[in-house]
């Protein structure tokens, strides 16, 4: 039996996403997010002795932890950059707990933020070997990679456009109960999704996240210290992580993606079964990711997510609450902070503070993060009880 992690989340701070930011820097959005999280935790910045940040923070690609520490005005005894794409947020949570267990610090702030200015061209700096062997062929950006994944699923299993569109539909529907969501007050039907422009066939526009500006911070501390906190602690009960490749051409088979390891591992560490999960807070940059992630949970067989989606209701009051904040498809994706939104929503639900979208008696949440093209995967089990 694997050891269980010991950390707990005592504070969250999330900025309301906006399509474009004005007069902001990544560092200023990081600070806004951290101030919210510290306030929520009921602690002061002097209590923070650990810092985890993302890579490539707008103004400073290197020495990121030192730059962010200096900007915030903290002097942590443990700091690091976590570089797992969309899995960075969940990946930070278990790393924070591990650093605390190792005795390097007691209270860690995990923070990600993104500015998104109008007219700013968002171009990731592709590096070799992708720059050498993908980009010259006309393949750059995530849309292409996730379209390839979706096409493969459709060809190998016979899944249909409607199967994928239903996933996007539920995310947009759930966003109607979240006033912070970028698509609040903008519901769509399955037909609208299917009628939206093809970006990279077979992916439609409405199956793809909207890039936004925003930020999210999470405060992790020891379970002992969490007991003295302002809120009901949310405990890290299990974590699983697996990396298999970087470029989509090098991915394992669609029935052997890395979530097949990381999700069962997180459940095992938490001594929990997937049937005992009340909230599925699953990374959703594209419909095709949710599809294969559902299959990796073991709740449906490889290739059978379509039937599963048809037969379940993904609302907070449904039989399978999934991404009750709207997911990133409904909430918006503030770059790497989008991955952290799945942690933040799990905390809302497990504290019982999710308001009109509260899942009755939510005890356990499965949170996933995914980076590159189902390459970097992290799964967490969070629980309201230790």
């Amino acid at each position, binding site marked *: 039996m694997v050891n269980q992690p010991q950390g707990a989340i005592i504070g969250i701070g999330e900025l309301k996403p906006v399509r474009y930011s004005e007069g902001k820097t990544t560092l200023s959005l990081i600070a806004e997010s951290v101030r919210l999280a510290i306030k929520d935790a009921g602690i002061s910045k002097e209590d923070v002795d650990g810092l985890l940040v993302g890579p490539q923070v707008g103004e400073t690609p290197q020495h990121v932890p030192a730059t962010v520490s200096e900007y915030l005005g903290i002097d942590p005894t443990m700091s690091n950059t976590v570089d797992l794409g969309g899995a960075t947020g969940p990946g930070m949570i278990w790393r924070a707990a591990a650093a605390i267990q190792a005795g390097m610090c007691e209270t860690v702030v995990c923070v990600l933020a993104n500015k998104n200015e109008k007219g700013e061209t968002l171009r990731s700096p592709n590096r*070799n*070997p992708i*720059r*050498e*062997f*993908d*980009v*010259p*062929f*006309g*393949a*750059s*950006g995530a*849309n*292409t990679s996730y*379209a*390839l*994944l979706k*096409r*493969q699923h459709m*060809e*190998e299993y016979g899944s249909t456009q409607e199967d994928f569109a239903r996933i996007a539909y539920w995310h947009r529907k759930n966003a109607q109960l979240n006033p912070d969501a970028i698509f609040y007050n903008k519901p769509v039907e399955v037909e609208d999704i299917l009628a939206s*422009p*093809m*970006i*990279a*066939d*077979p*992916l439609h526009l409405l199956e793809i996240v909207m890039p936004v500006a925003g930020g999210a911070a999470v405060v992790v501390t020891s379970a002992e210290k969490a007991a003295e906190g302002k809120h009901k602690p949310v405990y890290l009960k299990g974590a699983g992580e697996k990396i298999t490749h970087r*470029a*989509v*051409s*090098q991915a394992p088979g669609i029935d052997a993606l890395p979530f097949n390891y990381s999700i069962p591992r997180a459940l095992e560490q938490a001594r929990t079964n997937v049937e005992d999960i009340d909230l599925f807070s699953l990374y959703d940059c594209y419909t095709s990711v949710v599809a294969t992630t559902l299959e990796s949970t073991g709740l449906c067989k490889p290739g059978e997510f379509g039937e599963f989606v048809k037969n379940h209701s993904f609302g907070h009051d449904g039989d399978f609450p999934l991404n009750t904040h709207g997911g990133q498809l409904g909430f918006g994706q503030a770059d790497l902070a989008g991955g952290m939104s799945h942690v933040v929503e799990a905390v809302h639900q497990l504290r019982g503070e999710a308001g009109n979208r509260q899942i009755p008696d939510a005890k356990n949440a499965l949170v996933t993060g995914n980076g590159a093209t189902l390459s970097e995967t992290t799964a967490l089990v969070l629980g309201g009880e230790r």
Partner: protein
Amino acid sequence: MSQLPNISLPGPTITPVSQPFWESIQAGHLSLQQCDKCEQWIFYPREHCPHCFHDSLTWKKASGRGLLKTWSVIHRAGHPAWQEHTPYVVGVVALEEGPSLLTHVLIEETSLKHNLKVEIEISEIGPHPLPFFKKQEETK
């Protein structure tokens, strides 16, 4: 060789390790590394075998044939220079030798099929010959 207009499309960023790959493309065929120990074929080019961790690999001429595993018809290009060529097709080809690579696929949208037999078609983009893939000729 088919010809695309010479615009500022991003060419390959060749390294000393990958140089032989691009030299073979220039010479009109596909070469891959094969491990001298476990005999597995390797792509992308490396200086060690990712299968058995052996460090002696040999460049060998490859068949240039494979199966189309998946594809996407690009309507909105990730790189602005590609936009004027939309819609175009990119795909992943599983080579006969084992490794998979991402490539530009010179096949009509209506003829695209899972596991379609494809073969290399070296195409020039500006000064860069690239291994694109087309449908295998019936006779092969």
